[in-house]
């Protein structure tokens, strides 16, 4: 079992690295799907099968399809690829790489390993999540629904066809 866990974690990380280094947007999207699927496996191994399902259905399913649609609409071609190569020269990686490495090191240092035996874990079922979601956190769910509504309205506003505009 542990081998599968190691494999899933490795695929996740490698997939993420591939996402940020691809020159062609569609390749990146495919790698991102792979990353998300591997992440779903990790979630299953954490006992969160409901979260894993959501990850696959909503993230890898819906949001990624959105990306694919937009990339199709944008119709990026050969010159874009060349330009991406130009933008991705090794020098451009220097600053961000250093910054990200420092953040990573500091985070790892801060989250020093928890000692002591972990309590015997048990899977958290959909039932628990639903009871919490609509019991304790019902106000938060309302707020999130407002957030979704606001996102919907603003996406509609931004994307509307402005006849006679600039």
């Amino acid at each position: 079992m542990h081998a599968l866990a190691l494999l899933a974690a490795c695929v996740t990380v490698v997939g993420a690295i591939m996402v940020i280094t691809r020159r062609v947007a569609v390749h990146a999207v495919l790698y991102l799907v792979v990353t998300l699927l591997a992440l779903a496996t990790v979630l299953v191994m954490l006992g969160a099968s409901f979260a894993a399902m959501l990850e696959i259905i909503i993230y890898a399913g819906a949001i990624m399809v959105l990306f694919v649609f937009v990339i199709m609409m944008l119709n990026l071609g050969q010159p874009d690829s060349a330009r991406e190569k130009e933008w991705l020269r090794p020098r451009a990686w220097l600053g961000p790489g250093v910054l990200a490495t420092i953040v990573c090191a500091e985070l790892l240092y801060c989250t020093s390993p928890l000692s002591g035996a972990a309590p015997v874990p048990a899977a958290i079922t959909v039932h628990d999540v639903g009871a919490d979601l609509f019991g304790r956190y019902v106000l938060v769910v309302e707020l999130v629904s407002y957030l979704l509504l606001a996102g919907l309205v603003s996406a509609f506003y931004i994307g509307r066809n402005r006849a006679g505009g600039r």
Partner: protein
Amino acid sequence: MLAFSFNDTLLVATVLFSIGLAGVLVRRNMVFMLMSLDIMLNAAALVFVGAGARWHDATGQVMFVLILALAAVETAVGLAIIVCLHARGRPTLDADTGNLLRG
């Protein structure tokens, strides 16, 4: 079934977060920036789920659902902006030219 310890989860999440951060900082194409942001959000969500499993609390997955909603909104608005900019004759989607042209 539960093969991951919390420490492993934190490690994976930290690495994922840093990769996403590097992606946001290094890519000039806004589509890639959005994808990197999604990676970062996923890393945060992973920590929540891991903590929920560690202390056996459903709150972790509740937070995961909320982050999912947030990611959906963020992606929708971001892609709408990208499409809008592209339609106005900004074919390169270079985030650095956002200050030069009035969209």
